[in-house]
């Protein structure tokens, strides 16, 4: 009987279990659309966060390359000024030395902009980490650096900056969410923090005076470097073959061994080449301003991506990708040898 009753009880237990199972199964079926929607939204945020991180990091890194005067450019400038001084019988010219010293000082301010871009790049990288694993601590230290560099940049530019206090608070880890949901929550928070710094710095960089502050030095440095090249050109000291080969390239023309003699004896060809050289100088100088405008456009193009992430919409990366490609082309112009 015991066995029997036990069996009965057991059967009753199974019945009870069966009811519980049915209840949970029903609840699961009812919640399935909600869970799958939440899962879908979480996946969109995680994927969006990873894409935004890549785009932001790529844009900031590319911009950074166009901002400061490279060590190579500074070395070329020193050589050019030394040549110009010597050529004009002004070795040890105090004004030349003053100019070179001032360039170093101005470079210090450019480095603040470069540091900010470096911190921006690191913050985007840390945002990407949030999409892959629980990396809130890493993100929080990156956003703190970005906050510090934003303040330094604003001070260097003499412009006020108003970063909302919660932007520096970092992402807050919420323990009772599923891992995916928690990551999605952290990404959205992190994205908002980066966006608030981005918005502030864009408004600083949009001011025409800021562009002047950050780009005039590059124009003046290019001017001095180009002047030395122009002296060589005007004194007929260098071969014209590179310029001639460039111009003849569409017809696959190559200079002959006596080309330089021909050019020197022909004022019209010399005037043509001189004009090409001037055009090349002008292009390099205007590329400095273009790079600044493109960098600003790249920063602005990141804002709609942050908005899409916030709204759970897919990210359209085409605009920022185009601008990054333009920045790469412009960077190549800086490194192009002076002709």
């Amino acid at each position, binding site marked *: 009987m015991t066995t029997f009753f036990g069996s009965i009880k057991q059967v009753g237990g199974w019945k009870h279990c069966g009811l519980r199972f049915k209840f949970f199964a029903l609840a699961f079926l009812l919640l399935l659309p909600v869970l799958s929607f939440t899962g879908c939204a979480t996946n969109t945020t995680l994927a969006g966060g990873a894409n935004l991180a890549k785009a932001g990091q790529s844009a900031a890194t590319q911009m950074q390359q166009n901002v400061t005067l490279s060590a190579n450019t500074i070395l070329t400038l020193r050589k050019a000024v030394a040549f110009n001084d010597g050529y004009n019988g002004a070795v040890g010219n*105090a004004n030349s030395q003053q100019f070179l010293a*001032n360039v170093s000082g*101005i470079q210090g301010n450019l480095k603040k902009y470069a540091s900010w871009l470096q911190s921006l790049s690191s913050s985007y990288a840390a945002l990407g980490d949030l999409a892959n694993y629980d990396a809130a601590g890493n993100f929080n230290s990156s956003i703190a650096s970005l906050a510090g560099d934003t303040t330094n940049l604003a001070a260097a530019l003499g412009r006020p900056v108003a970063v909302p206090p919660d932007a520096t608070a970092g992402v807050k880890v919420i323990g009772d969410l599923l891992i995916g949901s928690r990551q999605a929550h952290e990404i959205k928070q992190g994205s908002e923090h980066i966006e608030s710094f981005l918005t502030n710095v864009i408004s600083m960089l949009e001011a025409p005076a800021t562009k*002047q502050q950050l780009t005039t030095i590059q*124009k*003046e440095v290019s001017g001095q470097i180009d002047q030395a090249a122009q002296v060589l050109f*005007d004194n007929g000291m260098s071969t014209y073959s590179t310029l001639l080969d460039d111009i003849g390239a569409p017809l696959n023309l190559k200079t002959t061994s006596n080309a330089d003699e021909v050019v020197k004896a022909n004022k019209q060809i010399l005037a043509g080449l001189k004009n090409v050289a001037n055009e090349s100088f002008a292009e390099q100088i205007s590329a400095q301003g273009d790079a600044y405008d493109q960098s600003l456009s790249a920063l602005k193009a990141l804002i709609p991506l942050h908005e899409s992430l916030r709204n759970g919409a897919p990210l359209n990366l085409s605009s920022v990708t185009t601008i990054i490609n333009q920045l790469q082309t412009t960077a190549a112009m800086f490194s192009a040898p002076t002709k």
Partner: protein
Amino acid sequence: MSDNQPAAQPNANDVLASLASAADAARQVYLVALAANPGADLSQLYVAEMKALALWSDAQDKALNNDNAIAAAQSNLDAATQAIRNALSTIKDISTWATLANNLVQLATTVAKFFP
């Protein structure tokens, strides 16, 4: 409105732009003279050019302050810079260029005092 109303004060960036423009004009003077007189002694022009460049870069590197006397000096500097740009294609004589460049540098020196 009073006729004696003071001219609008330029801000630091206006003055920096004027100094940069003057430095560019001084370089153009040198380059135009070089093209017209290859091999000639252009040291006077070069010294003026580097002086203008040092004045601009010094101002750019310094802190910015306001100075009431700067508006007139800036206006004169801009006029001299424009005059030099207008004359770039006409003057070939080095001594004429030297006079113009020295005048430009003198004005730039006055304007650069805006940055103590």
